[in-house]
Structure formats: C-alpha cells, structure tokens
C-alpha cells in the first residue's frame, strides 16, 4: 500500500514541474509589467525601469522562472503587487471559502445523484428513468451563472428566504452562513449532479449484468438485498473516482459562481487578480488550485485501490 502511494506521488513530480512551467509561461505572456502595477498612478517609464531592475524583472525568462520556482519550492509565493500582502496569506484566507462551497455542492450533488442514478438504472426505460436522465442532461446544459441569477431572483428577491449575496463565515454565525451558501452550493450541486447521475446509472447497469447478481437472485435473496448489499456496493467504487475528479474540477470551476455571489473564494480572487494584473497572485492561485487538483486525483486513486485491490497491481504504471 505504502509503496503504491509513494509511486503515485513520484509520478506526480514531473507533472507538477510542467504545471509550474505552464503557469509561469502563461502569466509571463500577459502584457504589462509588475513594476508598473506596483507603482500605480505615479508610474513613469524611468521609475518603472528602475523598479524592474530592483525586482530582477529585466533578466531573461528562464532565469526568472528558476528564481520563481526556487521561491515556490521554499514555500514562498511572493506578495501581491497591489496590497503587498503575501500571496500565501491571501490564498489561505480564500481557500476555506472555496472548500466550504465545493464540499457543500458535492454533498447536494451526491444526495441527488445516488437515488436518481440508482432508480434510473433499475427502472430502465421507465418514466422514472426518463425523468432522471432528463434532469441529468438539463443539469449539464444550464449555464451556472444564469441558474444562479434565477435562484437569486426567486429565493432572494421574491421570496426573501436568503440574502442576495455576500459571505458569512460559519464560525461567525452558522445558520446565517449556511443561508448565504445554500444558493451557490445548490447551483453548483445541480450542475455536478448531472454527470454523477449518468455515471452511477451506467455503473449500476453494468454491475447488474454481472453473474454474481444472477447468483444472488438465484439464491433467493430479496431484490432489496441484491440491490443494496451486492449491486450498489460494487457500483459505488467507480463512482468514487468520478466524484473525486469532479471535485477537482469544482475547485477552480467555482470561479464564475463565486463572482456572481461575491464569495471571497480562490476563483473570485483569481478573476480579480487577472483584471488588476496582479501577476504574483494569479500565479500563486492557479498553481495552488492545479496542485490541489493533482493531489485530489492521487487521493482518489489511493481510495480506489483500497476499495478495489486489483488496481494496485494492474494500473500503477499507466
């Protein structure tokens, strides 16, 4: 087991280097200089040139990448060109908000997807199946920002059940905090429920075609036993992988939803930083999110290998 985890982590190292290279390259291509952003209104070409030299921005790109990577490996993501705060502090403040939102959304999605996926598989080609698959397809086809606006209109403006926007930390006031988070999480959760429902549906359908299900039925077990203790248990193993991958996407994908609801998460922070040309923050946030995605995928693989020991032997190398 330990050797499997170590092997997976080792495999991630070249990918992490590539990720850091891509982040640096993309941000480096964005026109405008950090020095000009730092000087703000009072920037003159002379001042920009002097500050650029002080910051080492006049050096060739590979050198700057080396210096940046060295800092990153020492745990230093630099500081914001605008607020002058360390990027780690900013990310550390925003990450819990995004995790809160995405875990809440994941919870909603799973609550919808497990019954919907199971029912549509066991009642295949019935009205219930049609209803569930249509819902799943709609979830995939509705733009999140639009759904968010309609929810705000309905539950915020019309019914006044929840505040229109803003964020309250759960440590401050738990009930109010859930109220501010329920609409963003619901919007994201409905979108996520789409692929998860479809995934579970095919997974259950495949499990039902295995012989052990036939054997369980032949033994005279009740349909309920067959379903819960045989079929669902097997079907949920690949489902865990799907959930993990989707969760990784959500981390950064929440950006648009965070912007609609002005939630101070990493996505909102990144969008603002790109608009403000605050390059160290953009690099830091994107690097942290991409690394998080990679680590979640490794975690999912490890969980998968615990649930299904065949994986440890077979799939490690590919």
């Amino acid at each position: 087991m330990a050797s499997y985890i170590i092997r997976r982590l080792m495999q991630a190292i070249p990918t992490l280097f590539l990720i850091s290279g891509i982040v640096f390259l993309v941000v480096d291509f964005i026109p405008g200089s950090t020095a000009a952003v730092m000087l703000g209104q009072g920037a003159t070409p002379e001042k920009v040139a002097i500050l650029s030299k002080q910051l080492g921005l006049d050096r060739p790109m590979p050198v700057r990448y080396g210096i940046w990577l060295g800092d990153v490996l020492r745990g230093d993501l630099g500081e914001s060109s605008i607020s002058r705060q360390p990027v780690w502090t900013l990310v550390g403040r925003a990450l819990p908000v995004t995790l809160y939102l995405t875990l809440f959304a994941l919870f909603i999605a799973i609550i919808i997807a497990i019954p919907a996926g199971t029912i549509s598989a066991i009642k295949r080609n019935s009205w219930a199946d049609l209803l569930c698959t249509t819902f799943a397809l709609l979830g995939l086809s509705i733009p999140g920002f639009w759904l968010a606006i309609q929810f705000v209109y309905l539950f915020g403006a019309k019914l006044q059940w929840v505040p229109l926007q803003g964020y309250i930390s759960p440590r401050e006031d738990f009930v109010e905090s859930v109220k501010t988070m329920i609409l963003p999480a619901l919007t994201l959760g409905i979108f996520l429920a789409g692929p998860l429902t479809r995934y579970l549906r095919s997974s259950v359908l495949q499990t039902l075609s295995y012989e052990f299900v036939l054997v369980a039925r032949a033994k005279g077990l009740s349909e309920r036993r067959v379903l819960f203790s045989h079929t669902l248990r097997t079907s949920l193993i690949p489902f865990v992988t799907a959930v993990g991958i989707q969760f990784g996407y959500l981390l950064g994908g929440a950006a648009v939803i965070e912007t609609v609801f002005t939630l101070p998460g990493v996505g909102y922070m990144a969008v603002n930083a790109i608009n403000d040309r605050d390059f160290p923050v953009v690099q830091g946030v994107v690097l942290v999110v991409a690394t998080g995605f990679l680590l979640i995928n490794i975690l999912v693989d490890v969980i998968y290998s615990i649930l299904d020991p065949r994986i440890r032997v077979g799939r490690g190398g590919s």
Partner: protein
Amino acid sequence: MPATLSSVADTGLPHRHHRKSQTRRLLEGAIKWKTFTLGVVLIVIFVIAAVFASQIAPFDPAKPDFKSLKQSPSLTHYFGTDDKGRDIFSRVIHGTRISFAIAIASVSIASLIGLPLGLVSGYFGGIADSIISRLVDALFAFPPILMAISIMSIRGKGELSAMIAIGLIAIPEFARVSRSAMISEKENDYVLAARAIGCTPSHIIFKGILRNTLGPVLVLISLGFAFAILNETALSFLGLGAQPPSSSWGADIAASRRYIRDAPWLSIFPGLAIVFLVLALNLTGDGLRDLMDPRRNRR
C-alpha cells in the same frame, strides 16, 4: 462553471442485456432516435436563426428605443425589451451568430491541435506518448475557466481572444479521446496487415484508422461544441467575450442583473437560448454515440 468535456460525456459502459422483450427493445430504439432527432432538429433551428438572423429579427438588435424601455413580452416584442428599449427577441436571434462563430472557431482550434497530438501519441507510443501524455495530464490540472481567463488577458478582451482561449482549453480532452481511440484501433488485424505489406504510418493513419475513429471523434466534436458554448457565454458574462453593442447571450445576461427585480425577462430569454442550444448539442452527442456503437445496436 466547471463545464468540462468529461462531465458532459457519458461513460459508455455496456448495458444489461438479458431479460429484454421485443417491445422494450423497440421502445429503446425509438427513444434513442427521438433524442437524437430532437437534438438535430433543435440545432437546425439555431443554425437557421444564425444564418438568417437579419431576415428573422423584426428589429435592429443594437438600436436603442427610449420610448419602449423594459417592456414585458408582447405581440410586438415577443421576448420584451431591455433597459435601452432594444428588442430582446432580435438580440437573442443575433446572439446565435456570435455563439456559433466562437464555438466553430474554438472547436476547430481544439481539433487541429488536439486530434493530431492524440493520434500521434496513440499510434507511436514510446517517448512521444510519454511526453504528450504528461503534458496533457498537466493541462488537465488547470480549471478550464481560470485558464481561459488567463489566456484571454494575454490578448485582451474580444471575440477572437475568446475563440483562442476556449480552443486551447479544449485541447487536452481532444488529445485524450483521440489517443484512446487510436490505441484501441491500431491493434486491429487490418492495421497489422497494412504494416506487414509496408504501408507508411501516414498512409495507415489517414487512409485506414482515421475513418474508423470518426465515430468517437464526431461525438467528441458535438460535445465539444456544448463545452465551447457554455464557456463562451461564461466568458461573455464576465465581460471578456463579445463587446457591446453586439448582442451576446452571456453579456446580455450580465447586463440584465441590475433589473432582475422589475424585469426578469431580460435574463430569462437569453438564458433559455443557451440551455436549448447546449441541450441540443448534448442530445446529439449522446445519440451519435449510441447509434455508432455497434455493441449497443446489436442488442
């Protein structure tokens, strides 16, 4: 929104095949064909709207009319008017053009770069495969919309930047799907035979394998369109895509937010246009996959 190609795609696992009656099989076929047909019909309607936008739209989509501000839907203005008195129906019709233009351009970019990458790494394997696969892995780790925004800030706002950004973020999925299609195809006897009689790799790929991988690639392209439209509207919503006064669904929804209390129709209709177009593309993609998969047809 985390619109990803793989989240749009089904898993395509084989289905249960015992205890199925004749009528049920027929019903199943009808449903499959129906969803596919429904998807295609909806797409055709949108294409007609895009091509004949100027003929269909009753009003100039960009011309303000300060005598009829924020009117609710009526027989003159089917979808109502916006805060500048512009006819929303005409704007939605014209918005089809921008969405199609950006989607076509970005799917072309993704196909032109992603498909060859995947085919080469799938066919040759070895070092080329390792390098390309690691690169694709790394690209997958980036949240698509954040990557798109970063790429867009290199070139600035506008339609062309949006096309490039969306095209680039779709490359990894195109590469991955075509790679796995190539791997499963190249083990076939006809490829071995072609190799044995001395055909060049390019001959085998272009004359043989490509034709047989057309199925998964077509599915990929139609789902790629759905992905492109969702991301294009999200970028426009953030103010990065098509710039005013041109009518773009995402930008119109963003502009309507201020009037959501007293004029909800401002955002409802452009949003429904997105939902129906993306739904149509998903239906078509799903239908294509089921129709082209011989394992499913035979049952």
